[in-house]
Every structure is written in C-alpha cells, then in structure tokens.
C-alpha cells in the first residue's frame, strides 16, 4: 500500500513538474471560461433557464471537448514516456507488482484530472451566489455532475493508460486514445438522439451511450447501470494494460 502511494505521488509530481500538466489545466480553464460565457448568455436571454449543470454538461459540448482533449494528454505520459526515457526498466526491476504500477498510474492520472476540474466547480458555485437562484444549481445535480465527471473520466483515462502502454511514443499514445475517445463520443451522440422505442439494438446502444449517461448525471440522476458500465470499462482497459505489460515483459 505504501509503495502504491509512493508511486501515485510520483505520478502526480511528474504531471505538475511538466509543461503538459499546466497546458492541460490551461485548456480546461479556457474552455470552462467559454462555457461560462455561454451560461451567462443563456441565463440572460431565457425566461425559464435550465439548471446550470444541464446547460453546461448535458446540452453544451464544453464538457466533452475538455474530456476528449485532456484525458489523452494526461495519460499519454504514463507508460510511453517512461519507456522512451528508460526509467521503465529501472521501475520494473524493483520488487513492485505490475498491478501496482498500472493502478498507481491510473490513480495518479485520475487525481490530476479531477484537480484540473476543480476550478470549474468553483466557477459554478460562484454563479450560484451571483444569480441568487438556488434552483439553478441543485446540490443533488451537482453531486450527479461530479459523479459523471469522475465516472466518464475514469473510462477515458483508462483508455489513455492502455494506449500509453502500447507504445513508447507519447504522440502515438495520445492520438490513439484521442481517436478512441472521439469514436466513443460520436457513437454515443448518434444513438442517444435516435428514437429508441421498440428497437432492441437501439435501446442497448442508448444504455451504453456516454452522452446519455452524462445527461442523467447532470439532472442529478445517478443511475446504477451507468456506474457499473463505467467501472467495468475502466477495469477492462486496466486489465488489458496489465496484460500488455506482462506480455511485453515475458516475450
């Protein structure tokens, strides 16, 4: 456990010691700023505005752009950079287990990802104060949003960690996870918009749609099926990562 925490701390340290870490935070803040402008505009023009989380996380694309752009950048470093530098060899010749390494790299990425969202949460809380309309930012909806950010983020991050374990090039790792991420998003968008009554496949796809999940979360609906889905996705990709490491090692 102690070794695990040491590794997680190292991952976070590496993120904050590198320029990419700050670029990620900057991108998130910039896009959140655009999102905020959108919210303010809507609050001014709509007579009965939707609650803020819905504008921001369900209707708008800011969340998705941030998610799809930042997760590959956060995770591309995890394995690829260590392999390119050679520190991977130094790491894997210590008595540290493969699962420990995989989980630590994932946890470090998740922690950094959540931290990069923190300013936005501050922005939302500030909006609530300014608008004097508490119904615009229901605490339950806020919990839902946080759960959504963490859950959907986990899935995307585990994809990124997996992509990073496949290569020693950070760019290839980032491109791979970016492509998978965009693919997942467009498919989700496509199926959550279709009329799904009746058609079995359509209904199934709707259950798997990450945009649908986020719409629910933003309304404060924490659906167990969505939670299970993202937990399994995360575990699945981390499992694949561990297999890749083991295979590469014993080849």
């Amino acid at each position, binding site marked *: 456990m102690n*070794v695990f925490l040491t590794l997680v701390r190292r991952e976070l340290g590496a993120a904050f010691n590198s320029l990419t870490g700050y670029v990620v935070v900057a991108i998130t803040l910039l896009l959140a700023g655009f999102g905020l402008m959108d919210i303010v505009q809507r609050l001014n023009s709509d007579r009965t505005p939707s609650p803020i989380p819905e504008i921001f996380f369900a209707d708008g694309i800011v969340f998705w752009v941030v998610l799809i752009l930042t997760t590959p950048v956060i995770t591309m470093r995890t394995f690829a950079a260590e392999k390119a530098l050679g520190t991977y*060899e130094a790491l894997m010749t210590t008595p540290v287990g493969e699962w420990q390494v995989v989980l630590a790299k994932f946890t470090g990425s998740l922690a950094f990802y959540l931290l990069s969202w923190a300013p936005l949460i501050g922005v939302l809380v500030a909006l609530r104060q300014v608008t004097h309309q508490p119904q615009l930012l229901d605490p339950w909806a806020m919990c839902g949003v946080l759960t959504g950010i963490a859950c959907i983020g986990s899935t995307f991050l585990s994809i990124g960690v997996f992509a990073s374990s496949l290569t020693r090039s950070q760019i290839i790792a980032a491109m791979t996870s970016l492509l998978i991420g965009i693919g997942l998003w467009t498919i989700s968008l496509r199926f959550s918009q279709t009329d799904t009554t009746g058609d079995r496949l359509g209904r199934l796809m709707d259950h798997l749609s990450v945009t649908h999940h986020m719409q629910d979360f933003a309304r404060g609906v924490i659906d167990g099926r969505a939670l299970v889905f993202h937990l399994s996705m995360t575990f699945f990709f981390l499992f694949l990562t561990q297999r890749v490491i083991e295979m590469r090692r014993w080849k």
Partner: protein
Amino acid sequence: MIEVRDLTKRYPGRTAVDGISFTVGRGEVVGFLGPNGAGKSTTMRILSSFMPATSGTVRIAGFDVFHQPDEVRRRIGYMPENNPLHIDMRVRDYLKFRARLKGLGIGRSRDRVDRVIEQCGLKDVEKRIIGQLSKGYRQRVGLADALVHEPDLIILDEPTIGLDPHQLRSVRALIKELGRQHTVLLSTHILTEVEMTCSRVLILNQGRILAADRVEDLESRFSQDGRVVAEIDATPEAIRDAFRDLPEVASIEIQAAAGSFQRVALTPRAGEDLRPLVFEQVRQQEWNLRELTRPRLSLEDIFIQLTQKNKGGGL
C-alpha cells in the same frame, strides 16, 4: 552469487545470447567485456529479471530469476544502460522514491539515502534537480540508486559511458570502492576499465563467451613468451657478447635507439623472467640502463586476437 547455465536469448531473426554459462562468487568484481551488440546488455537484463531468457537458468543468491523475480530484485542493485533517471526530480527525493519502491520503510529509507548520498559524494547537490546536473553527477545518482537498498549484487550496464576523463576517474574509484563490500558485475567496452576495476573478466562476442579468466592470468596466457626489453648505452657487439653465452637466453635482437642507446629484446628459453639477469649484466659491465620492461599484451591486444580468431573460425 550468480550462476548462469546455458543461457540463450533469441529475438526474432537474431540470437543475442547463445548458450553462455558462468558463475560469479560473492565479493568478486567481474567485468563483462565486449563490443557493442555482443549481448552484454541482454544478459544483464535477464540477470536483473527485466526480461526472461529463451532457455537456460539463472540463479542469483540461490533464487531463480524467472520463478522468484521479486526475491532476486530485492537483492540486486541494477543500473540500466544509459542510466535512466527521472530528470524532473531532486536528487534526495529521487533516491528516497527509489528506496521506497525497493521496499524500504520510511525511517530506514531516510537513513539509507543519507548514507548513499555521503558515499557517492552527492552532499553538495542533494537538493538540485537531476536534469540540471552534469553527467558525472548523474552517474553517481544512478550508482547511489543501485546501492540504496543494500543489495548483495550490483549490476552496472556501462557505468562510465560518456564521461570526461575527470569524471571517469572519480566514478571508477567509486566502483572500486563498492567492490570492497559488494559483488559487482559491470559491463564495458573499454578495456582499461576492466584492468583498473575488475578482478575477473568475461569476454563476450556475438552472444558467446570467448574467455573467462582473472585479469592477470588472461594477460600472462596471451603474453609474448616472457620477452624482455632493455635500453642499454653500449655498442651492439658488446651487448651481444655479454648475453650470447647465457643459457637462459634463447634469442637476442638489437636495434639502435635514440642517442647512443640500443634497444635490446631478449627471449627466454623456458619462460623465466630475464629482468634480474639483464640488470646483473648491466651492473657488471657498468653500462648505463634507461629502461627494463617485460611488455605485456594489453587486454586490447588480447581482445583483438580473440575476436579475430573467432571470425577466422567462422569462415
């Protein structure tokens, strides 16, 4: 400490290590010598259980590297090729991080980090960021990392590559120092390095061991039949007369050297050391002597001989 039997590593289309066997005893400092691509790094990676062998067994301190990798890793301090370090970390933080990964507790890792910082002369730079250090210091950080968990065996893959002469000297001295307390296996393609730091040498070429011997034995095995060279201030005739009738001398060659000196090469009949004899003669004749040596083949010459022989055999 190390037992390697019939170790083979094949990559697709290439055999990197071809059925080598050797043992290294506790407390030995052994040099792995060979040109680039001889299989040194591959062997070391297998020994440190970073990658598995295609066939053969390796035991470190009695533990099998394949079946008990964690036991092996706890007992090895391994510095990989090119000494990879986290260049964004500070020296002390990095060593502490590595100590923790190697399973040392918080208190113990602090003590050990203090110790290796002192041992490797890193006190002045312990708070500096590794990326800003000179190569010599980085190498010391790598060595400190290899040492931090008090391993029984230290494996260093080309520890002195890319250092300037000054740094080279201090890093070699450090390795020599380590050899007093640990078993050390190091690889290099610099021959003088092996002569300076190692007690035993394994010469590797194209995945095979060409020679395995103590450094001195290897030299005498390949020495030029005990030939002695002296530079004497006398006429060639006088020299010839003085040495001709000695039963120990098989042949004598004389060449003019700078000044009035002659360069005399004497070959003994049965490998005895002719130096005292030559000196005795010089003293009796009251000649002037400015050099008296028994030239030894350097490892360089031995290596060239061995690899050429190997090539010749292959043709």
